[in-house]
């Protein structure tokens, strides 16, 4: 059975319909890339799935591990294993990065009825993850995203993902604004987290991320719907021909 089943999803932002009947199924272990032109609804999809305020679902369903995902508060979704890597990670001045992450980690564990980690246990876990992610621990001592460079912010998102170990990771344009070295680092991080139990939804505008994180499926999102699906070759085709002309011939 699929981990995530999106059926005929319609969603509005500020009265404007952005998603217009989006359907998609994602199973554990799979990496799906969602591509599409600006304004197609890519980020809206990520925000609707993670429960951001201001996104009104007008029709359709989203079933996650057999439950109605849309009925859950954002923090409940997080505890259930849904993670959104933000396109624009948010700064929280004065709040230490490690402290923030431990609060999140323990809140999720508590919600799942698991035992919370004390600071020693958590520090040990963080050290292990740092090694895997090849991130300097200097990042840990700073306030959440405060004064981080674009690349540092994105890597911090991936680092959070590594610690929180979600089942469903949604990466919202994680590649945007990164130079090639930073992109490689982020991709290495994502690849290290690929597992048979975990699914990825990678929202991206460009195919270059897909050179480093090779997806199992590529979907083209245009005008609020998936207009074409295929394997990674679809992404290359898009790179060559652009988004223009896509979706034509798909029944309305």
């Amino acid at each position, binding site marked *: 059975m699929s981990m995530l089943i999106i059926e005929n999803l319609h969603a509005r932002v500020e009265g404007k319909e952005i998603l217009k009947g989006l359907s998609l199924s994602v199973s554990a272990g799979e990496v799906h890339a969602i591509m599409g032109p600006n304004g197609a609804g890519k980020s809206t999809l990520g925000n609707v799935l993670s429960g951001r305020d201001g996104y009104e679902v007008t029709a359709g369903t989203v079933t996650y591990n057999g439950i109605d995902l849309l009925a859950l508060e954002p923090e409940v979704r997080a505890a259930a294993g849904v993670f959104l890597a933000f396109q624009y990670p948010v700064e929280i001045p*004065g709040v230490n990065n490690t*402290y923030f992450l431990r609060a999140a980690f323990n809140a999720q564990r508590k919600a799942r009825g698991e035992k919370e980690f004390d600071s020693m246990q958590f520090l040990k876990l963080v050290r292990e993850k740092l090694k895997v992610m090849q991130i300097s621990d200097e990042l840990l001592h700073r306030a959440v995203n405060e004064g981080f460079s674009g690349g540092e912010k994105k890597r911090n998102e991936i680092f959070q993902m590594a610690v929180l170990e979600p089942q469903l990771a949604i990466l919202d344009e994680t590649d945007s604004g990164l130079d090639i070295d930073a992109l490689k680092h982020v991709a290495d991080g994502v690849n290290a987290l690929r597992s048979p139990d975990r699914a990825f939804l990678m929202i991206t505008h460009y195919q270059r991320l897909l050179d480093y994180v090779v997806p199992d499926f590529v979907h083209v999102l245009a005008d609020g719907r998936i207009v074409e699906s295929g394997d990674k070759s679809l992404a290359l085709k898009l790179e060559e021909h652009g988004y223009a002309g896509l979706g034509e011939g798909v029944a309305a």
Partner: protein
Amino acid sequence: MSSSMINENSASTTLRDNADVAEALGRSYAAGFVTEIEMTGLPPGLDEDTVRQISAIKQEPEWMTEWRLEAYRHWLTMPKPDWAKLDIDPIDYQAISYYAAPKAGLKSLDEVDPALLETYEKLGIPLHERAALAGVAVDAVFDSVSVGTTFRKQLAEAGVLFCSMSEAIREYPELVRKYLGSVVPTGDNFFAALNSAVFSDGSFVFIPKGVRCPMELSTYFRINAQNTGQFERTLIVAEEGSHVSYLEGCTAPKRDENQLHAAVVELVALEKAQIKYSTVQNWYPGDENGVGGIYNFVTKRGDCRGDDSKISWTQVETGSAITWKYPSVVLRGDRSVGEFYSVALTHHCQQADTGTKMIHLGKHTKSKIVAKGISAGRSSNSYRGLVKMEKGAEGARNYTQCDSLLIGKQCGAHTFPYMEVKNPSAIVEHEATTSKISDDQMFYCRSRGISEEDAVSMIVDGFCKQVFRELPMEFAVEAKKLLEVSLEGAVG
């Protein structure tokens, strides 16, 4: 760095606090209970006889009685201050009882009424344990009379005097006469004059020349009797080259009548002396509709009397229906340093008009002001600060940072910075920001699994970090908890 500090703090709190406290803190106003102890006191009303009676009860010498009477007579001639951005119902000074005390005369901790000790326990201040655990000497003030003082011996060995003001007046009259009223004169302002006339007790600290006080000194205040004004008087004198860190914290039981609290704190720092004064203020703030709560009119002033001296105020103000308070530093000595770190939180219908005054008289004096205001509910929160560079303040510097954080749409934050610069070589810097907890920040936290309430307290804690790290660790924990409790229901 700071995170591990918080972690350690949480651990030490768990150690110290009993379960009731933790449970109570998780709910509403934690200190809302009344201790059943027989009280003796004066009937409501204020005239010269009242002042004489208070002085007589305290077995004060004639000069002290006269000092009080002079203050009282001056008070009668003074107008009530009305310049603050506060909406205050008229106070009937004749309806207040000016002296209340636990009935039995107490000489040691063992004689303290068990109910009283229990009260401290509930508040999380188990006198012996806390003192032993934390190495803090506690001069606990219950209503108007000091009931217990610990670690007196150890302090005495270092030559430090730490006792109640009443005792100081009896035991060290020459010191009291020399310094009392020398920083805040009896006629300084309406509330200081009132305090000078009727002050019931408080703390006296004297650190002799060259002595570094071996422990942090701490006093806990608690208003207990109904309709009893609380008029604390504190005097701290640090002689040449000495150091002292003093902690003041207060909680008051819940009740409906407004209670008046008009304290005076005077600090004197002689050459190269350093005084650090930290306050966590948690008087009863009134209910959601603004019924009840403490009126807190405080005069706190430090005098950097000697060259190279330093006075630092750190305050976390979450309580009181009305707060009127401007801890100040007079930078008299050359190269003296004044600091003010403040977090003032208002919720529901609370009103706060607080800030500081830095009066630069000496050459190359420096002052730093970091004020953080948090407003929620329908509250009003004002920062009011004066930086004055007098003619002689050659090369003096001030840096002021005022940040306001708004939670919700019905609260107000105001900043009133005053600057008077009479020396052209002086430098005054002022920065101010106003921000809101953004939807983005809230969603970011929630998408990571953190609940709305925890997200708010985390963001607020981050906002206050600059001030919290100035607090002694014990207080930083309490301050953080207080903000959490005070902000309950502010979001959502």
